[in-house]
């Protein structure tokens, strides 16, 4: 009788505790030191260094940039906003950059498949080659007018390794490679992201982004996580 009551009490207590424990595992904030190096065969070069902040509930990625110039760059659902010396510049966006950013995918635990499982793209086939597990994703919804016809996603050691985006006529629109994984709170985060894409002028664009000193669920730097810019 005592054992039965004890079991019941144990189950009730665990029933309350387990959701709390599960909730504590949720990641909602991430910050990191970042460096972006860009180069194009047309001669364009750029170096950007600073710190990036992302709170999944705020739906804006905030870059506190100190090089080339001190400024704050904000990416939200509709625009990119640059704030420098009190001046605000806004450029409207057509695509969703937040949901497919490495930061957002990491927090949502969808980085291994680049969030493709929640898109109209359907998994067509999976192959194993040279230590890579390569999956082919095709547009499964005929009503979606997407410039992307196909995606090749590769995984290495269960981590996202690469993503190749194909456009009309199976031409490569962009290639992204994710390397130098860092263990952050039990999850793998790519410390280096390479991006290659042909530019509109026929040149090739290359970009290297590196992340260091990654912190998740920080209670500090609220002013950046919830950055409010004042229009001039």
């Amino acid at each position, binding site marked *: 009788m005592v054992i039965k009551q004890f079991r019941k009490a144990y189950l009730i207590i665990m029933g309350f505790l387990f959701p709390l424990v599960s909730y504590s595992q949720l990641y909602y904030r991430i910050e990191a030191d970042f460096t972006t*190096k860009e180069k194009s065969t047309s001669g364009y070069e750029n170096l950007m260094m600073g710190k990036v902040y992302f709170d999944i509930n705020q739906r804006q990625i905030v870059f506190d940039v100190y090089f080339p*110039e001190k400024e704050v760059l904000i990416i939200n659902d509709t625009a990119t906003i640059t704030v420098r010396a009190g001046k605000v510049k806004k450029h409207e966006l057509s695509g969703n950059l937040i949901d497919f950013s490495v930061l957002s995918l990491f927090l949502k635990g969808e980085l291994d498949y680049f969030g493709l499982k929640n898109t109209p793209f359907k998994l067509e086939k999976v192959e194993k080659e040279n230590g890579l597990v390569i999956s082919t994703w095709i547009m499964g919804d005929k009503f979606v007018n997407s410039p992307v016809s196909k995606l090749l996603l*590769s995984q290495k050691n269960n981590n996202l390794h690469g993503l190749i985006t194909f456009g009309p006529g199976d031409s*490569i629109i962009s290639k992204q490679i994710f390397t130098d994984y860092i263990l952050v709170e039990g999850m793998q985060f790519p410390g280096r992201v390479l991006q290659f894409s042909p530019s509109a002028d026929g040149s090739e664009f*290359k970009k290297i982004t590196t992340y260091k000193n990654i912190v998740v669920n920080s209670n500090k730097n609220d002013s950046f996580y919830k950055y409010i810019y004042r229009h001039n």
Partner: protein
Amino acid sequence: MIKQYKAVQFFNYAKIVKALKSDIHKGFNHYFILSLLLDYIYVLLYLLLFKHQIFINMKKTLLLTVALFVTVFTFAGNADLFDVNEQELNNDFAELTALENYVSQSNFITLSDIQAGKTYDLMGINTDGMGTSSEGQFAFQWEGFLWGFLCCPIGFFVIAVNKNKDSDQKLSYWIGVGASVVFSAITSPIYYTY
């Protein structure tokens, strides 16, 4: 004759396997496919010439050849698409990496500071596109201009005091207002004279 055929058959497969080993990691290779096609034709010719002796082997030969073709087309270099030439990448970004290291050690130095103090040799780097995202370059906005030029009282509320419009829109609005004033100043005397 069977021995001779088997020798040739072995030679063919040895060649195919060798080619597979050497070329499979290089992706889709036209010469490799051509060599496989020649091998295939070669085997078929043998089958035609000596079919009475090798009838039993024919099925096996065809199956193996088809299997090899299927393997080749399945392995047509998807993994190679993910290859990155790290050496080339390092060479391409050598100057930017050197600048990155300098900035990291120089405690939040900006490009303007470097250019003003000439503390780092920027000769090998094209800095034209750096740091021009929000300052120095004004991007003319037709929407703001037209509001200012055609209907400035309403445009004042739509653009000038609208929190969602950026500085380029607002400056374009005031350019439009200015252009409207100048245009009116020129055309009004002409209108009232005639």
